[in-house]
């Protein structure tokens, strides 16, 4: 398994919103095209360090950001 996890969103706006919040909290995140093995969607997903998984998801839950799903990249 890689060191990265990825969060999928229902809208691009939520992905951008999450990136902005997490960069402000100094997490190492990057917006990437949605990996095809995870979804047929044509939008963007947020990649993060899997070590930060719990803290990253906590930030988004507390900010009430709508997320679709969280995955560890193979």
């Amino acid at each position, binding site marked *: 398994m890689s060191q990265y996890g990825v969060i999928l969103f229902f809208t691009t*706006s*939520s992905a951008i919103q999450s990136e902005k919040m997490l960069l402000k909290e100094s997490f190492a995140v990057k917006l990437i*095209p949605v990996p095809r093995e995870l979804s047929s*969607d044509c*939008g963007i997903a947020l990649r993060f360090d899997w070590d930060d998984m719990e803290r990253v998801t906590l930030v988004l839950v507390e900010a009430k950001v709508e997320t679709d799903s969280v995955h560890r990249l193979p």
Partner: protein
Amino acid sequence: MIYMDNAATSWPKPPEVLRAMTEVLERAGGNPGRSGHRLSIEAARVIYDVREEVAQFFHAADPLRVVFTANVTHALNTALLGFLDSGDHVVVSSMEHNAVMRPLRYLEQQGVFLSIVPCAPDGSISLQDVAEAMTVKTRLVVIVHASNVIGTILPVAEIAAIAHSAGALILVDAAQTAGAIPIDVQAMGIDLLAFTGHKALQGPPGIGGLVIGAGVDVARLHPLMRGGTGSQSELEVQPEYMPDKYESGTPNIVGIAGLGAGIRWLKHRGVDAIRDHEKMLTNALIDGLSVIPGVKLYGIGDSGRSMPVVSIAVSGKRVSEVGQRLDDEFDILCRVGLHCAPSAHKTIGTFPEGTVRFAPGALTTLDEVQQTIKAVERITRS
């Protein structure tokens, strides 16, 4: 040239707005939310940042409930056609623009019931009349924040309270006020705020928006258009997620970037400082025009209770003649006629002739106002 038509669109635009618009195409020219490469992501970031700017500017809680539209007409149509069903009752003022009246007259043919609360000739409204127009079937009150003909500001917060106590929502047409006077959608109780970017917000034409409050159940607000959103592409039904539900098709990123720069320019200058400047110009216009023999002034005559929009008639002269002479002989640009608001002109008693409308703006000077007064004075004498 003296530009006195800021109620139609503000001009000139701050240089920062023009710069932001060219810069966004150079720096962030991708299709936001569609492709996932860096230019696409950067475009999406620009749009999200402006969404947040708009939400903060109007004190809206959730930036994802700021929906971008082509203009305020598009925003009003989204709210009216999306929210109202046959059998619903709507309360509306008699000072509305056709951007409200035409969709409502269409909906009336589809079985929506309309009550039009008559305003006084100075554009003011009686809160008691509004309260008495409410019925158990009233789902929406639609109100213009300030008249585009005479500038009179309506008491939106008080009308919102009346609407809510009757179980209805309120939709506010802020075409003339957004950017010119402070708007706090939460404190004022505004459920749906329709605005345009190209007037007091200093942005370009082609961009506006609808701010949707927490009290609006978006499941009951149908989108005007359906199509590609970049999200949930595997589905052939429109997504319900905000703001994608109402934003099908490639957005106007150039307009959005210009709107964002306009808002930042306003925040830097200060909405209150600009308001004070425009009140000073309005007072000068009212004082100067009201003493000219043969000039009749419409409106409330109080810059504190109106926007910088001053309408006049000149006795013995057609409004079109006055407008053309101001343009040809004095290089002064204003707007004459009915201003797309026949109901408002009927209310103030100027239908079907209309008025000559002067609308100074944030960048208008006192000298320009004084030259305008002198020009009107000369036109009345010859």
